[in-house]
């Protein structure tokens, strides 16, 4: 359907595919002296607006000398009118093509340059109206299935078959942050580019099938360091709970025009892990001094972004005063934290009545949660949950239940003092739980929610002279990264604390 009208104003229609809701997707290309000044419209008996349009380079379409370059397009049309025509108007010149559904869109996408498919995937992520592209047909990823099959898969973070690239480490945090660190065997160009599209599989509980979705990546920023490309953005964290699988499709242009398209499965990371990845700029030995300094500078910028993003909410939540449970009607949820040692089960075996008299339900978290829970389950007087069920129950309790949170070691100390009731003296209200979840997402130091809760409880009983935040002990990429990230986490953890102290 290529129909050159004049040498430098050309319109080609590669395929038109019907879409749900009577819409149609048109793929093609244009060539005009000034594409930005040109306009595409549909001419038909009735109105038929173009609801969505994206353009991308088409270097595969050779042009005559001095001719303007071709640009591919993807148009979402409100309908496919009979006798309709697609018109390219460039000043006083025009080119047009009849709109007729034809062409194998999937095959066309598979055959076209990778760049075009990536652009379409970006469009899918940006526009919900294009989501059906990923669902059409029997295959996963719909019309983009063949294109996605051509992506270079990363095994873990190792990249093969992409010359110059060694690793593509991708991480997500509970707050929906997405971190990409592409490491190369040689220095990247200063103008190197890194783009990403999150691609998920959403299970349907009723049909048992999964639906592919491309997600918008918000606030994406990428930067080129000497030996690493670093990208950081975020998705709506609600997706993380809903998706069965989350992949990242990367478009990497390390040196000018050359590009690679990768498919990576990001690793769920703690906040320290995610942030430290910025400073792991090389897969080999220690980074050079220059690379290390550049990474630290980037880390500082990133930390500032995070504090601007998360700080206000954390400050607000810290300032909330617990709402009184006037009628004492809130469900009494018991929570045993840090039950990491099976020996703790002995203590709870002989003190079970302390909990049975105070709680309607009990959650146990920690490495030895099963053993501790068994001490209660055997007695059969208190429903007890562990593992993911316990975490979910705690999330659901936010806003509607009071939680008697007890850290196992501190409970032991209270019992040894002969005053076990002291361990129950600071119940967490709904406001505390909201703060807990926010802190866990923004500044959680371990994957386990129980660690965040233990830190929050510590913060709440802080005495003068005690540090508000205990630094995270892990295998940091460098002491400098450790210092920066720990200081950043400390600031997030203490957001609003000063106001509280003086309030």
């Amino acid at each position, binding site marked *: 359907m290529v129909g050159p009208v004049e040498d430098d104003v050309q319109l080609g229609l590669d395929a038109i595919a019907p879409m749900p809701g009577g819409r149609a997707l048109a793929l093609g290309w244009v060539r005009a002296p000034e594409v930005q000044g040109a306009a595409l419209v549909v001419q038909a008996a009735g109105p038929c607006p173009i609801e969505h349009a994206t353009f991308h380079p088409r270097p595969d379409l050779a042009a005559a000398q001095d001719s303007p370059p071709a640009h591919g397009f993807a148009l979402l049309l409100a309908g496919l009118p009979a006798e309709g025509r697609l018109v390219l108007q460039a000043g006083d010149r025009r080119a047009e093509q009849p709109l007729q559904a034809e062409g194998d869109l999937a095959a066309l996408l598979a055959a076209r340059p990778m760049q075009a498919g990536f652009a379409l995937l970006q469009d899918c992520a940006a526009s919900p109206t294009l989501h059906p592209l990923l669902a059409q047909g029997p295959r996963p990823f719909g019309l983009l299935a063949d294109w996605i099959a051509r992506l270079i898969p990363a095994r873990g973070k190792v990249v093969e078959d992409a010359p110059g690239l060694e690793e593509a480490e991708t991480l997500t945090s509970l707050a929906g942050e997405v971190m990409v660190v592409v490491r190369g065997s040689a220095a990247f160009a200063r103008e190197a580019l890194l783009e990403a599209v999150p691609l998920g599989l959403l299970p349907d509980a009723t049909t048992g099938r999964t639906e592919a979705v491309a997600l918008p990546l918000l606030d994406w920023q990428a930067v080129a360091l000497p030996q690493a490309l670093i990208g950081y953005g975020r998705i709506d964290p609600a997706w993380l709970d809903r998706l069965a699988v989350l992949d990242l499709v990367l478009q990497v242009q390390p040196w000018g025009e050359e590009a690679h398209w990768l498919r990576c499965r990001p690793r769920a990371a703690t906040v320290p892990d995610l942030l430290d990845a910025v400073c792991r700029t090389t897969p080999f030995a220690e980074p050079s001094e220059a690379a290390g300094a550049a990474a630290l500078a980037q880390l500082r910028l990133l930390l500032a972004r995070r504090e601007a993003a998360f700080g206000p909410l954390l400050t607000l939540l810290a300032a909330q005063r617990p709402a009184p449970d006037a009628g004492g009607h809130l469900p009494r949820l018991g929570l045993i934290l*840090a039950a*990491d*040692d099976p*020996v*703790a089960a*002995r*203590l709870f*075996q*002989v*003190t079970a*009545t*302390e909990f049975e008299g105070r709680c309607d339900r009990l959650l146990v978290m920690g490495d030895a949660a099963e053993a501790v829970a068994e001490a209660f389950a*055997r007695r059969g007087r208190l429903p007890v949950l562990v593992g993911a069920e316990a975490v979910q129950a705690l999330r659901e309790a936010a806003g509607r239940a009071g939680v008697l949170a007890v850290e*196992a*070691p501190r*409970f*032991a*100390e209270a*019992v*040894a*003092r*002969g005053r*076990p009731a002291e361990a129950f003296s600071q119940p967490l209200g709904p406001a505390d739980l909201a703060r807990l979840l926010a802190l866990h997402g923004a500044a959680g130091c371990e994957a386990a929610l129980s660690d965040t809760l233990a830190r929050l409880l510590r913060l709440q009983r802080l005495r003068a002279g005690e540090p508000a935040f205990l630094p995270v002990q892990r295998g940091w990429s460098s002491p400098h990264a450790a210092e920066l990230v720990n200081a950043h986490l400390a600031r997030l953890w203490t957001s609003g604390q000063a106001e509280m102290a003086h309030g």
Partner: protein
Amino acid sequence: MAERDKVCIIAHSHPEFSKGGGELAAHRQFETMRDAGRDVIFVGACEVGTQYAETRQIETVMPFGDREYVFSFAGMAEDKLAWEDAFQRRVLVDFLAGLDCDVYHFHHYWRLGADLIDELMEARPDARFVMTLHEMLAICLHHGQMVKTRARELCRRESPLRCLACFPDQTLERFAYRKATLLSVLSRFDSVIHPSEFIRARYRDWGLTRPRDPVVENYLGDAMLARPRRTADPEVMAHRFGFFGQPTSFKGLDVLLRALPMALRGNPDIVLTIFGAEREDVLRLFPTLEPMVEAAGPSLTFAGRYDPLDAVELMGSVGWVVVPSIWWENSPVVIQEARRAGTPLIVSDIGGMAEKVRPGLDGLHFKRAAPVDLARVMVDAANPALRAACGASLRDVMGRAEFLAALDAAYAPRQGYSPEMRRAAE
């Protein structure tokens, strides 16, 4: 009336299978109460049954004579302070609860389990619970010795960090769980009987302050009390010294053997007899002592093992009983037996030994773990005048009537104390 109470004595062993001071005291109490017409049952842990249970099926609780039972503790955790097999624990609890006793008197918690005690207390909230503490296992992970694992230094106070220094592979949390579990359960007893002031003070310092906590010495039994106390000739006996017991590293036999050559230089007439071990047993444990043993020559005799029932009589054959333990001891039965025999003692100047032997009256003290000082004291002791003086002032042991009265007091219901308060009392 306490005399009409039905009492169940539950011990960590039965003297048929081991002859430790705790199980001997528990069983002697059973015999004494039974012979006094009390309604009493004895239930003891059984090593033989437990070993058998490792390979073959065996009942958890088995009759073992008239009103005596033994039980297998095969279902317990390695440290024998709790049960891994909750079903077996339940079987034992059901058995004990079904005995329908008014008083459950535990001797020790090792091989019995804090969780079993807790479950029995819950099953029998109307009963009274009494515990006799024979050592400090709850306080100290080092076999309850309160002696540091490095260099056998004495430990004077438990704390998580101190304990961590002795057991660096443990965690602070684990020490906290251990203490809380044991202290929680022990605090619910109506009475905790301590055989010495020393051990009572240690448990009080540790935090066990809720129950009544009388000091009641272990009773040696009617048979030993019926023996006449002989008067020895100090001229003949003053230079004869005896050691009674197992040659374990805490009993200080090495200190005594190091002291002997020095004492012999001060008084060549001194003779020492080791009751409870052969020469080979001692040298196997303390091979570096061979030169001292050789040097002592005929002044040193190894008498081998003895039956505990013969201890009092054997102690009559020496002028002094030496108790050179390097750990605190609580209320060593050897001291009671020596007092019963009328033989004064030479003891380390610490813990239950120092308490039970009044210096200059019941015997003499020497600096713990100091062979030089022990040698000095042995030379002094070989003086017949000193032996005669100590022999004359040496106390006898507690009598039967006094012992039973002390038990009745411990078994009596506590004023204003209800079963519901048991847990609240923690």
